[in-house]
C-alpha cells in the first residue's frame, strides 16, 4: 500500500459521510481533521468512539458537521468543548447522545456482522428514552418473565479516521494497546489512517508487534503525518501540548476567536503538513 498525502486521504471522504473519530486519549488524527477543514468538508455525521475531543470541536467550529453521535464531548483538563456547545445551542448540529459501552457494543455488532447486540444497564436513563433506535426486550434466556435488557443496532461508520505510530508497506497498522481503533477499523467500511512513520519490515512478522497491529485488509489508505496527533498525546511517542489545547479552548470561546485560531493553525500555508 503506497502512502498518500494527508490531503488525498481527506479527499476520499465525501460530504455527508458518517465519520468515526476516537477521542483525545485514543489516537485521534488531528492531521486528518485539519485536512478536512481545509478541504471545506460539509454535512459530516461524526461518531465519537466512545466520546469526542478536540478534533470534533474543531470540525464543528469550521462548519463541517451536521450531526454528532457520542457519549460526551470534552477537552479534558481544558474543559467543555466550546464550539460544540455553541453549535448545539444555535441549532446547527443534531446531537445523538449515547453512553460509552453502547458505542463500543454497536461497533462490535458491526464487527461481527450481526444486526444487534444486547447491553445491560441503560434502563431508566433518559438517553434510552431519546433513542428510538434502541429497543428493550425481555431476556429470552432468563427462564422467567421480567428481565428487561436493551438491544443496540449494529453501527457501521463509512469512515474510521485515526493516527497510529507505525504502518508497514503492506498497509498493516500498529496501534499498540489502543485496540478500540482495531474494533473501529473492523466495523467501518473504510479506515483512513495517518501514521508517524513507516516501519521497515512487515508488522505481522514481528511476534511482539503483531498483537497490536491491525491487518491491512481493514485499511483503505494511509498517509505519513509526523506529529499527526498534536496537540494530543501519542502513546509513548510524545506527550500532550497542554498549553496549545488551553490556548485553543480560550480562543474558541467566541466564533471570532475560533476563526483566528483556525487561520493561524489550520489554514495558513505553513500549517499544512
Amino acid at each position: 500500500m503506497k502512502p498518500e498525502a494527508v490531503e488525498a486521504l481527506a479527499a476520499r471522504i465525501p460530504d455527508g459521510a458518517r465519520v468515526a473519530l476516537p477521542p483525545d486519549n485514543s489516537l485521534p488524527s488531528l492531521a486528518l481533521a485539519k485536512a478536512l477543514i481545509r478541504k471545506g468538508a460539509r454535512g459530516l455525521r461524526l461518531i465519537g468512539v466512545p466520546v469526542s475531543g478536540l478534533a470534533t470541536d474543531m470540525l464543528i467550529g469550521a462548519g463541517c458537521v451536521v450531526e454528532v453521535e457520542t457519549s460526551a464531548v470534552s477537552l479534558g483538563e481544558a474543559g467543555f468543548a466550546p464550539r460544540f456547545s455553541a453549535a448545539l445551542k444555535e441549532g446547527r448540529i443534531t446531537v445523538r447522545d449515547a453512553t460509552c459501552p453502547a458505542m463500543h457494543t454497536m461497533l462490535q455488532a458491526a464487527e461481527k456482522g450481526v444486526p444487534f447486540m444486547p447491553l445491560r444497564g441503560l434502563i431508566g436513563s433518559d438517553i434510552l428514552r431519546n433513542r428510538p433506535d434502541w429497543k428493550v426486550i425481555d431476556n429470552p434466556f432468563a427462564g422467567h418473565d421480567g428481565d428487561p435488557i436493551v438491544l443496540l443496532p449494529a453501527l457501521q461508520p463509512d469512515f474510521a479516521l485515526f493516527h497510529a505510530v507505525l504502518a508497514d508497506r503492506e498497509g498493516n497498522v500498529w496501534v499498540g494497546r489502543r485496540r478500540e481503533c482495531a474494533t473501529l477499523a473492523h466495523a467501518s467500511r473504510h479506515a483512513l489512517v495517518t501514521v508517524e512513520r513507516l516501519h521497515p519490515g512487515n508488522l505481522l512478522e514481528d511476534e511482539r508487534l503483531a498483537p497490536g497491529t491491525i491487518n491491512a485488509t481493514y485499511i483503505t489508505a494511509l498517509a505519513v503525518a509526523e506529529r499527526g496527533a498534536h496537540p494530543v498525546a501519542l502513546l509513548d511517542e510524545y506527550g500532550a501540548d497542554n498549553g496549545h489545547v488551553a490556548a485553543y479552548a480560550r480562543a474558541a470561546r467566541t466564533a471570532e476567536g475560533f476563526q483566528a485560531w483556525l487561520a493561524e493553525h489550520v489554514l495558513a500555508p505553513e500549517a499544512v503538513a
Partner: protein
Amino acid sequence: MTDATIRPEERLAAVLARLILDPAAPPARHIAVGAASPIPAAACWLVKKAGHPVRLSLLHKRSGNPFTEGTRELFDLTGQGRIDLFFLGGGQIDGQANINLIGTGEWPGMGVRFPGSFGSAFMYMMTPRTILFREEHSTRVLVPRVEHVSAPGVSAPGVFRRGTAQALVTGKGVFRFDPARARFTLDSVHAGEDAASLRDATGFDYDAPEPVPLTPEPTPEELALLRGPVCDEMLETYPEFCARVFNRRQAA
C-alpha cells in the same frame, strides 16, 4: 518544607479514601477511575500508598494503561461484576441520587449543555458501589429533580443492577444514600460549614442528625502521602492539578 495549610482538594481526597475503606460497604478490590477525576484518583492512590491491597485501573493513564483490549475492556469487566467501585459526578444531582450529565433546558441540553453522559448509564447500575463526587455544592448542582437523567439512582423492581450510590461527597460535606428510601442523610460537614449552611446550599431535601458531625481533617500521614508518592503517580495524567494543588511540575 511542611505546609500546614490543608487544601480543599486534599481534604476531599482524604474523605473519599475513608469512604473507599468503609468496612460496612462491599469490598473495593478493584477500583476504576474515569476521565477528568483528579481528586478521586488521588483518593485511590492514597488508599494504595497507605498499604491497602487494591487494584487501580485509571482509564486515562497514558503510560502503563491497564487495558489492552481497548476502551471497551473497562465496561466488559464491569459488566461481569469485576469492578467494585467507580466514581461519578453530575452537572446536576438530585435527592434520589439521579445524575444529569446532559444539560439543562430541552433535550439534549439546549439551556446549558454539559459534556455528556460518558459511561454513567451503564457503570452506575453495574458497579456494586458508586461514590458520587462534585466539588461545587450549590442549589444549581444539588437540585430537587434533575432535568435529564443520565443514570438513575434507583431502578424499578426487576431491572438488573448491582448497586448504587454509597455516598455523595461535595466541597461542603458528605451524604450517605439509602436506596430503599431513595434518600440522602447528611453524614458530616467540612471545616467552615454547619448544618444551616449545608441546608441553604442544597436544593434537595435530606435527613440530618442533630448535631451534624464535622468531617475529620486529613492526618499528617495522609497529607505527607498525598504531597509525596500520590502526587508522583499523578503528575503525568493530571499535570495542571498537581501544579495547582501540590505545587509540583513534571520534569520536561
